[in-house]
Structures are given as C-alpha cells and as structure tokens.
C-alpha cells in the first residue's frame, strides 16, 4: 500500500512539474543567450574589429558559442581574458598573451585645418574644437579607435604610444627562469 501511494504521488508530482516546465519553456522563452549580453558588457564596446569579427556583439556571440578563445580581444589584454575565462569557466594560460600597446591620438598643430571632421566621428567626444580652430585630443578620454585618423584629410591626427611618466611607470616583471612545474614530484627533495 505504502509502495503504491509513493509511486502514484511521485508520478503525479513528476507529471505536474513537467507540465510547469513545458509551459515555462513556451512562455518565458529567451531569444538570445543572456551570456552574450554579459560578454558584450565586458568587451570594450569600441567596435574596433581587431578580433576579426565585425563588432563587439558578434564577437560576444562567437565567444558564447565557443568559436573564439578567451584571449581574442587585443585591446582588452590579459585583464579582459581573465574576466571572460571566469565568466565562461574556461581554463586559461596567460603566459603568452601580449599586453596591448597603449596608444593615444594626437593632433599635429602645424597641419590641422580645423575641418571638424574628426570630432564628428569620435565615439567618446574626446576631440574638442570648432570650425577653423586647431583641434585637440583629451588624452584621458581617447580609446584609440583610430576613427579620427581615417577621416583626417591632412593626416595631422596620428596615433602615438602613451608617454611613460612617473605617474604611470610600473615595475617590470622579473625575468622568467624556466622552472619545473610544481606538484609533479620531479623537484621534490629527499
């Protein structure tokens, strides 16, 4: 008797929950994977295309599908790769990721004609100026997307590496000496 009631109740419960899941699957369907949105929020959002995808959204989709490695975004560097790997639960070896060279746009004051084309395309409003006035780049807001370089008719806008000052100087990583992997027992002393 006990056995029968258990079988009946569990079966009913299973059927009921299955029905609930079926309904939820139909009415609460998500069009795109939420992981893509999360990935897109992590990516720089400058749509630079250096990864080989047409923009940050397609890159995020490729990452979510597993078609791109976590280290795919050159401007993001290893910091971004670590965040992506943590989100997707990937194993990550960062020892050969190259850190991006930091660039900033600068206006050459000799050749700027004040045409205003550059600050119209700047996605972060990092260029200030007025018609027939020499423009200037707010270095802290520049994201090195190079859009201004493409439209400048006199090639006065160029990318330059960010100057090292005492404010942004950092200690270099100590030179790596090949060390045997830990925990293999090969370097145990007895």
């Amino acid at each position: 008797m006990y056995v029968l009631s258990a079988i009946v109740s569990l079966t009913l419960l299973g059927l009921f929950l299955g029905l609930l899941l079926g309904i939820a699957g139909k009415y609460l369907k998500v069009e795109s994977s939420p992981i893509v949105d999360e990935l897109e929020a992590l990516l720089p959002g400058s749509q630079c295309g250096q990864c080989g995808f047409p923009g940050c959204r397609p890159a995020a989709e490729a990452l979510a599908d597993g078609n791109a490695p976590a280290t795919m975004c050159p401007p993001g560097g290893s910091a971004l790769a670590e965040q992506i790997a943590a989100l997707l639960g990937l194993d990550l070896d960062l020892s050969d990721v190259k850190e991006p060279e930091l660039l900033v746009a600068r206006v050459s004051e000799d050749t700027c004609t004040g045409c205003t084309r550059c600050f119209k395309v700047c996605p972060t409003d990092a260029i200030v100026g007025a018609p027939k006035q020499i423009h200037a780049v707010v270095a802290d807001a520049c994201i090195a997307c190079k859009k201004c370089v493409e439209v400048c008719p006199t090639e006065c806008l160029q990318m330059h590496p960010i100057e090292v000052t005492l404010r942004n100087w950092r200690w270099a990583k100590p030179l790596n000496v090949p060390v045997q992997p830990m925990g293999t027992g090969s370097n145990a002393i007895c």
Partner: protein
Amino acid sequence: MLSFFKKPRFRGGVHAEEHKTATAALPIADNFPLPKKLYIPLQQHVGKPAEPLIMVGEKVLKGQLLAYSQGLISAPVHAPSSGVIVDVNDYPAPHPSALPIRMIVLETDGKDEWVKTQTVDDPFQLNPEEISLRVGAAGIVGLGGATFPTAVKLNMGRENHVDTLIINGSECEPYLCCDDRLMQERAEQIIDGVRLMLHGMESEYAVVAIEDNKPQAYLAMLAAAEPYPTVSVIQIPTRYPMGWDRQLIGYVTGKEVPVGCRSSEVGVTIHNVGTAYAVHKAIRYGQPLLGRVVTVAGGAVKRPMNVEVPFGTLISELFEFCEVDKEQTARIIMGGPMMGDSLPHVGLPTVKATSGILALTQSELKNTDEQPCIRCASCVSVCPAGLRPLDMANNIRINQLDAAVDLGLKDCISCGCCSYICPSNIPLVQYFKYASGEVMARQQAQHKSEQTKRLIDARNARMERIAQQQREDELARIAAKAERERLKAEQEALV
C-alpha cells in the same frame, strides 16, 4: 603559563646583518660644502606636486617659499639656500626609472642668507590648529621614507581623538643610522618636537620606541624625556621590519590595525624621530624643512658618514665628498638595502625621502641566480603581513593576478623579507611589486572602460536628441507650409 597561549607580539621578520658600525660612532658631519647648484623637485611627498611661484632669474633667500602646496594632501617647497633661480624644468627624478619630473634649479650665492623667520615665545600657547598650519607651511613630511605630509597626519590625529603618539626610532633597515645619530646628538630637540606634536594632536602621551641595538640613543632620549611624564622611551627588539607602522603599533600597544584602516582609527599615530626634530625647528625657530641627515655608506664608500645636506644636492657631489670608489660600485641605492630604490646613475638630487645613499659592491649584493622553489616555506614564516609569498609568486608568474590578490597581494608591504630569506634566490618581492603595479593599471583600465561606456552613451543620447529635434523642426516646417497654403487657398477662395 597562560602567556604561552598569547599571540606573539610580533610576526615574521628577519635579522639581517646590520652593517651599521661604520657610521654609527661618527658624529653628524655638518661641513658639507654648499653645492653650486641645487635641483629641487616640486614633488618630494605623497600627494599633489607643489606649484612654483617664483620666476627664472629671481633672487631668493634661504627658507623662502619656492612652490606652494595645492590640494588637501600636498606640501610646499622652500629654498635650501640663498641664490638665483636659473631654471624650472624637467630633470631626472631620484627614482629607479630616473624619468623626468619638474624641478627648480637654484644657483647658490654662498651667502646662505636667511629670510625673516617667524618665531614664538611659548608655542604651547598656540592653538593645536595653528601648530598643524605651521608644520604644513614648513613643508614637513614624514622623514622615515613614506613622505606623507605631517600636517595632514596631525589633523587626522586630532579629528580621530588619537590618544597615543608613537615616535618611531627603530631604524630597522641595515646600514642606515641617521636617526640613531640624530637621537644621540639632538635628543632634547627631538623630545621638544614630540611634545609640540602631542600639543598639536591634543593627544595624551607619547612613546618613543628605539631598537635595542642603539643603547646610546636610548640613554640620550631617556635622559632628555625624564622631565616630561607624558613622554616615555622604551626599547624594542631589533628585528626588521620593526619600523613598519602596524608591527610597531602591535608591539607597543598590543592593538592590531584592521586591514584597510588607518592607524589613527585604533587611536594611535606614528611619526619618525626626524619628523619630530623638523617640527621642533619649524615651530620654535620658524625654519622650514630645508635639509636632512643622510647616511652615506656601503662597501664602495671610503669615508662613510652621516652628513647633513640641503635638499637638491646631487648624489654625485655627495659621493665625491664621501670618496666613493666608482669602479667598485655595483649598485646605488636610495634608502635602506631592504626597501630602498636602486638608482641608475648619480646625477639625481637628494630629497625629503632620502634617509641614506648606499654604494654597494658586488660582494654585498644578493646572488640572483634563481633556482626552483623547494617549498621550504621560509618566506611564509618571515612574512610580517602573514601572507604566503611562494603561492602568490607562482600565480603571478603565470599572470593570474586575481588569484594573487585573493591570497592577499594588497596586504604586501614590499618589505623584502621573503626575497632576503629565499634559499632559491627567487625575486619574490619583485614579483609583488610588478603585480601591484599591474593590478593598479588594470583597475585604471577598468575605470577607463566604464568612463568610455558612459561617454558613448552620452554621445548617443545627444545624437538622438539632435535627430529628434531635427524631426520635430521638419514636422513643424511642413505644418507651417500646409498652414500657409491653406491660408493662401482661403484668400484665393475669398477673392
């Protein structure tokens, strides 16, 4: 018996060979010839650089204000001697990178003529706020090496109702003995400075803590402090890094400063003995901070000594005075050998942070022949911050900085005990310095990407607003045109 279960009064640390005998017995030399040119950096402190208010070609007197402090955390800079300003420009900084920073170049006239100074008869009648103001105006910063503006620290002490002032006379770094000599020779002035700081912070009592390898300094300070019941002098064990504020607070008061808190939050503030001496000179005689005692030592120095030099003196001139053998010098270090910075050349000025300049020979340097980690955990037992340096370094080696931060990278004080003790010569503290910088850079990058998103959103919203405006204008124009045509048609119909 119960004491067996108590927490030890200090954790970790090493006892390095002291190398202090060469200079500890010599009196402070005051016969250093005044340099022809002084290179005075505008930033010799933590915080914002000072802003110059003199012109090139201007004649200045000793003690005259050259650059004023800007912002809450900053310190002014004064002329260390009289002379003419010949340049305000970028010159190499006393820093491992020797990158240029702004400096004022003063050509001295040899007269050493003082500006008129402000003195008081009884400084204890002054308001505590007035003491802070005068200390701030004198450009005094922490002379132990941290160079935090002292006036800010006094204010914080007053606001947080700090009851104990600890005066750090530990001088735990090897080679250095400028504080030792200062305590031996100018004990009364230091104690006076301590009492002025107590008055400025409205604190109750002060403890001068001196390592037990400086018995003469201890006796001198003890004698000088005897008439004042609020100032006590104690001996502490010789162990590096005893001068680390948290270690010292833990040893002297038994209190532990929580992670991420300032020491004033547990009712304690630490100042260096050199700072106390500078406060005495600033308040009693109105003299700003113009120079300091510097230890010049190391195997390559023929005449090692403690010498009082004006700020801006080039290390090359100091080395000439102390007869440093260039051939034998393998490394130049500003500060102590454990935490000091290695300098690339000698054309750099001495600053407020320069407690010592060492010229070390090859035999004094640590072997850098790196071997694999043998997991002996020596670094764990010496770490005063209670971290696991070997695990942190392994993570940093493969660039997993987040894992290193989880292991407590941010609590590392870069004291160098782990690198010192490591039998495999692994550059542990170097890894942590690199990683701390990298973590900072990543935080800045993260901050910038957030800012970028904000800027892009703001721009998109603006573009949308402009487009909307244009659409509305267009609609209004079409409506107006229709209205005009309707009126015209009506008029035609009337006619």
